[in-house]
């Protein structure tokens, strides 16, 4: 378990939306434990659920034998999560450039918008294992979702 020897929690789930709620519940409790404000807890949970939804749907195409691996880490107060799927990734650089988001009537295409709005930093990385999204929420920061 060598490389897990940092203060992080790892969640490993099947590619099934049924498990999203458990991930959501875990991050909510953990963020509370690490003294995040209720607003910040909502923000990180929302962003994380979006990342997992995409990993299950677009990354693993709901394949029963593919896994989504989530790591949750509170680094000197700030929160960093990664979500890794077993897919081949996508043109995330382009997606990140698209500031406008989808047409209001469109039924799709809001996941990345939401992740960006509710975190302070959003990174994608793709290697031979799959796509990894990294979400960062600073303890002090609020993303730009504050109302």
């Amino acid at each position, binding site marked *: 378990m060598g490389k897990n020897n940092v203060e992080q929690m790892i969640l490993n789930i099947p590619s099934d939306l049924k498990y999203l709620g458990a991930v959501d519940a875990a991050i909510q409790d953990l963020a509370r434990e690490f003294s995040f404000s209720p607003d910040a807890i909502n923000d990180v949970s929302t962003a994380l659920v979006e990342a997992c*939804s995409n990993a299950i749907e677009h990354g693993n195409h709901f394949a029963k034998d593919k896994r989504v691996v989530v790591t949750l880490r509170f680094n000197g107060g700030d929160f960093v999560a990664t979500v890794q799927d077993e897919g081949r990734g996508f043109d995330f650089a382009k997606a990140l450039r698209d500031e406008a988001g989808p047409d209001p009537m469109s039924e799709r295409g*809001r996941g990345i918008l939401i992740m960006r709005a509710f975190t302070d930093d959003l990174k994608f990385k793709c290697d031979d294992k799959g796509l990894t999204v990294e979400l960062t929420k600073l303890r002090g920061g609020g993303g730009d979702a504050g109302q």
Partner: protein
Amino acid sequence: MKITQREVGSAAILDLNGKLTGGPDADAFRDVFKSLLEQNKKHIIVNLEKVSWINSTGLGILIHNYNTVRGAGGDMVVMHASERIESILYVTKLNLLFKSFNSEDEAVRSFTAAR
């Protein structure tokens, strides 16, 4: 997700219970809307009080049904969204598409008020 249906005035209220995340939920939800429109019930309130959270696929379901209702000359509003859901509606600008109420009364009256 469970969907319960009731009526207040001219409005059909759908009480959702659970999480709105796509999958089988989408079909169930669409069927309810279809059957409401067939009965000529075109004022639909989606009660999100017992929806703990929603993802963007869930938003897509809401938008799909909103579009259907509007296409049939009706209207759909949501009510009792949690702060978490409100902030998602705000960030995605969906609060500009369908109205969101904190009171059932206001939601019901919204259909009869001048638009």
